[in-house]
């Protein structure tokens, strides 16, 4: 077979990234909210190290819930999450989070926001600001160090959120629909930057989105979630060549095929 085909696998089998060591393991996680609302039913997943895994599904499928359980922000009703073999009981320094609504401190300048994780660790000001400056430049915000969040556009604010998460040098970077609050043009640029980040930073990314195109564009692996209650319906590993012009990716037949496959699979959830 010469044309690479998107591989639709049954949940929990993993022939392609099998040799990649999982850094985050989710084992039989269930989540029931008060009032007997079942959000997640028996989710088991592995997240391969150094890759970008996307949780994709219709709204209300529990993808954000699952991400917050991995982050240690929400307790699971049953089941466990392991990060580097250690059981998650709360947030930890090996995990950083990028928020959908940026979650910046409006009273603090960009540099203080970016350095906040280091400030909490008690790292001296000059040292933490030097590190923060490096990451502010990395996300193309050089020159905005002393600005305040309300002086920045939505896209720039999310860059601040991203720089803050990079600054603490966590192994796992979790992103909860990070681009949904920015406009479409900025979003595309962000997605291209994401690919660069995954290639250059030696980090594992867990990405939540409801956009099929975005998921296929950036992901090494896509976990498709069903809803009510949420289960893993498929794991897809798009075989897309990401070398060369980022614009070309969106025109590759492989890219379009995977998008179409996922769309067919998610169609049934339309109300």
């Amino acid at each position, binding site marked *: 077979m010469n044309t690479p085909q998107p591989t639709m696998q049954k949940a929990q089998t993993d022939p392609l990234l099998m040799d990649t060591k999982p850094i985050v393991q989710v084992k039989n996680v269930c989540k029931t909210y008060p009032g007997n609302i079942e959000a997640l039913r028996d989710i088991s997943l592995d997240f391969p190290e150094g890759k970008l895994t996307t949780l994709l599904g219709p709204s209300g499928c529990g993808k954000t819930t699952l991400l917050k359980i991995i982050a240690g*922000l929400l307790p699971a009703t049953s089941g466990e999450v392991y990060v580097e073999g250690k059981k998650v009981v709360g*947030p*930890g*320094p090996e995990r950083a*989070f990028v928020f959908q609504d940026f*979650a910046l*401190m*409006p009273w*603090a300048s960009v540099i203080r926001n970016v350095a906040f994780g280091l400030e909490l660790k008690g790292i001296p000001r000059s040292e933490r600001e030097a590190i923060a400056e490096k990451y502010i430049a990395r996300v193309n915000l050089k020159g905005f160090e002393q600005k*305040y969040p309300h002086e920045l556009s939505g896209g720039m604010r999310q860059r601040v959120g991203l720089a803050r998460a990079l600054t603490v040098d966590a192994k796992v970077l979790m992103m909860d629909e990070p681009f949904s609050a920015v406009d479409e043009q900025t979003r595309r640029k962000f997605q291209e930057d994401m690919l660069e980040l995954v290639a250059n930073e030696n980090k594992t990314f867990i990405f939540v989105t409801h956009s099929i195109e975005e998921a296929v564009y950036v992901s090494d692996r896509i976990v498709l979630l069903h809803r009510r209650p949420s289960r893993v319906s498929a794991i897809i590993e798009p075989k897309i060549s990401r070398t060369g012009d980022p614009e070309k990716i969106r025109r590759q037949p492989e890219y379009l095929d995977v998008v179409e496959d996922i769309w067919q699979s998610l169609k049934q959830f339309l109300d």
Partner: protein
Amino acid sequence: MLFFGYRIPLFTSLILWAVLWEILGRTAAGMILPPLSAIATRMPEVVTNGDFGSALWITAKAFLTGNLIAVGIGIPVGILMGRSVLADRLLLPWVNLFLSAPLSALVPVIMVVAGIGEVTIILTVVLFAVWIIMLNARAGVKSITPSLIEMTKCFGATIPQAFTKVYVWAALPEITAGIRLGLIRAVKGVVIGQLLVSIVGFGTLFEIYLSHFLLEHFWSLVLILFAFAFAINEILAWCERRISYYASSR
């Protein structure tokens, strides 16, 4: 404001009321409400009186001390109530009760405990100011966006760090509004306290003026205190506007 096509400044209405007062003061009501002009000419006399100076000093001291205590207790307790369901359940009924209760009735109780003197005045100020400060700090913390709290946890803040580096700042617009409302109530507290104790500060002056039927003096003092309360409110409102720019972007 436009009046028959003419633009007239806002304070014009004050002139109207002043004229009305003046007319009223020259009728039989003048017995208890002297004309405004008579009160105004009495003002320099009241202000230059040595008793006024010492009363102002004592009052300012009690006012500031009381407010500092009220802020020192109100903000931390309010923030705690905003973050801890247990603390909230325990304290909220009491805070709401004291917020609406006729607190003047409690001043005699304070007098019994703290004696007739400055301490009672200070405690009265605290009693008047602290509840609204608490309630506003609580409301401020409750209105913090959930993601900001999650962010604080995610980046590993200890509980003291979370309070001092995030929650206080995030709730600052509401906290300052609470302090402003608290100070306005504290003005009431300090005057009511002094009136009831009546041997301290302006309480003594009011007592002397009323018992000697010096109504022009009495009204001068009332107007001066009103002006003070108004000025305090305006100054704080100005400070508040300066920091509320980020209230909408939290």
